[in-house]
């Protein structure tokens, strides 16, 4: 069982001042599968995601306690090397945030952080990752242009390529298609289905249909608590908890 789980979260609690945002979270996230964290807005799913790569460190008002084990390491440990840890994950946000550089340098920045410095290697890998995100053909002639000139769908793919460039094992996605048009969204979803073979994917969404389309594993959250978790097919066909049934039935959303 342990070997199949890439991430093991135990007793995770997050407080913002006196407000209890995440309550006693215990989750196992299986490797090489797409795990979707589902739930209505405000249930804490984005905070949960931010705990995983310790972006919560940026907000001193947040108090995080518990254990998050990845590769036999508790990433919440104070002594952990967060920079290394963060490179184990790639983050894709709701809206694409290309770095204020050229398309080429967006990827190169990530590569340099990983330790790749030699020009020829950089060049090869930049093209590789752009190809992986299926962006290369569209930008091959404008690699030295500012990334801000791309369309939103293209920017999101660029952020995907950039996230992949640090050679992570886990991909964290926070509602990655919510700002995109249907075609670009579909593109990202298809990509994720391909990527799960090599990466463990944790995707947060509040769109039920997206979860149905791509999830292998479901975690349903409500108001900071995990209500139900399990194999997608199981949870969708036979929701056990009352709240889950209500959510799927569309009663509260």
């Amino acid at each position, binding site marked *: 069982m342990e070997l199949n789980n890439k991430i093991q979260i135990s007793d995770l609690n997050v407080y913002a001042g006196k407000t209890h945002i995440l309550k006693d979270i215990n989750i196992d996230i299986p490797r090489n599968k797409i795990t979707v964290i589902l739930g209505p807005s405000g249930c804490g799913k984005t905070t949960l995601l931010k705990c995983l790569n310790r972006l919560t460190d*940026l907000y001193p008002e947040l108090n995080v306690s518990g254990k998050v084990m990845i590769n036999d390491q508790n990433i919440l440990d104070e002594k952990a090397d967060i920079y290394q840890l963060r490179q184990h994950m790639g*983050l894709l*946000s709701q809206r694409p945030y290309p770095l204020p*550089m050229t398309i080429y340098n967006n990827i190169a*920045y*990530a590569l340099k952080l990983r330790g790749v410095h030699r020009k020829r290697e950089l060049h090869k890998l930049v093209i590789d990752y752009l190809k992986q995100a299926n962006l290369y053909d569209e930008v091959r002639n404008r690699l030295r242009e500012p990334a801000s000139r791309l369309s939103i769908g293209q920017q999101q793919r660029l952020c995907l390529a950039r996230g992949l460039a640090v050679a992570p094992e886990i991909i964290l996605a926070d509602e990655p298609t919510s700002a995109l048009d249907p075609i670009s969204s579909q593109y990202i979803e298809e990509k994720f289905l391909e990527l799960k073979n090599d990466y463990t994917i944790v995707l947060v969404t509040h769109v039920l249909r997206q979860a149905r389309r791509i999830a292998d594993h479901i975690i349903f959250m409500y108001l900071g608590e995990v209500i139900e978790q399990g194999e997608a097919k199981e949870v969708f066909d036979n929701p056990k908890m009352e709240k889950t049934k209500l959510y799927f039935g569309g009663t509260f959303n």
Partner: protein
Amino acid sequence: MYILNRKQRHYVNYSWMIISLSLVALLPFFLFLGLYLKSFLLLHDYSLTDLIFSKEWRPSSGKFGFYPFIVGSVWVTLLAMLFTAPICLLTAIYVTQYTRKYFLRIMHPVIDILAGIPSVVYGLWGILVIVPFISRYLGPFFGIKTMGYSILAASFVLSIMIIPFILNILIEIFRAIPTELKEASLSLGATQWQTVKHVLIKKALPGIIAAFGFGLARAFGETMAVLMVVGNVIRLPKNIFDPGYTLPALIANNYGEMLSIPKYDSALMFAALILLGVSLFFNLLMHFFISKYNKY
């Protein structure tokens, strides 16, 4: 009880607005025109290059060389910017990226107070603290004998004066950068400083340059504080411990005598015209710079 009905009041208000607006909109032109007309007498008799590049200033003999004053102004301003720019940038970054929110709340009144202190008081402080410091400690440290009243003293006082101005702009710029951009960089495993260096500063760069540009324009025209510590000696300074003379100081110090010597008043008005020109030029420059870079 209204004396005028609604329609009439609207008309009155409207005229009031238009008159005021015209006054304000035409202000720069009037300023320019007024000063130009007054300096016309001077420009009529001397060429522009002569005035700007000749080094002799003896109004009673009809010699009006503005060069020493221009050089003095340039030295003082550039040196002040050299000092202020890194301090403001470093502080703005520290206060917006590295400290907790309450620290920024403390900085605001500090900046406001610094901004509110009038020029004379800065000059007074300069005389009280900076000038003796330079003549007693700093000069001798470098083996130079100096009275303390120098380009260095003026630059230092000036740099403190423009800190609140530039710092406010920089803080606003950095605060305007979306946190998600910072998060995007950090998620890639970058450290805070790497994020600042490669991502945040790049994003803020046009604004940073504009802030410095505006600060420079402001510093160039500063009168009182500089006048009190720069020494007011008409000669080309050889090093920063030498006293100097700036354009604003020239105008301020000599207005009393200007009507007694022919063309002296024209000369001083011309100096004011130069200051107006430099200030307008820089403002225009920064404006175009910002609008050009905002397209990114």
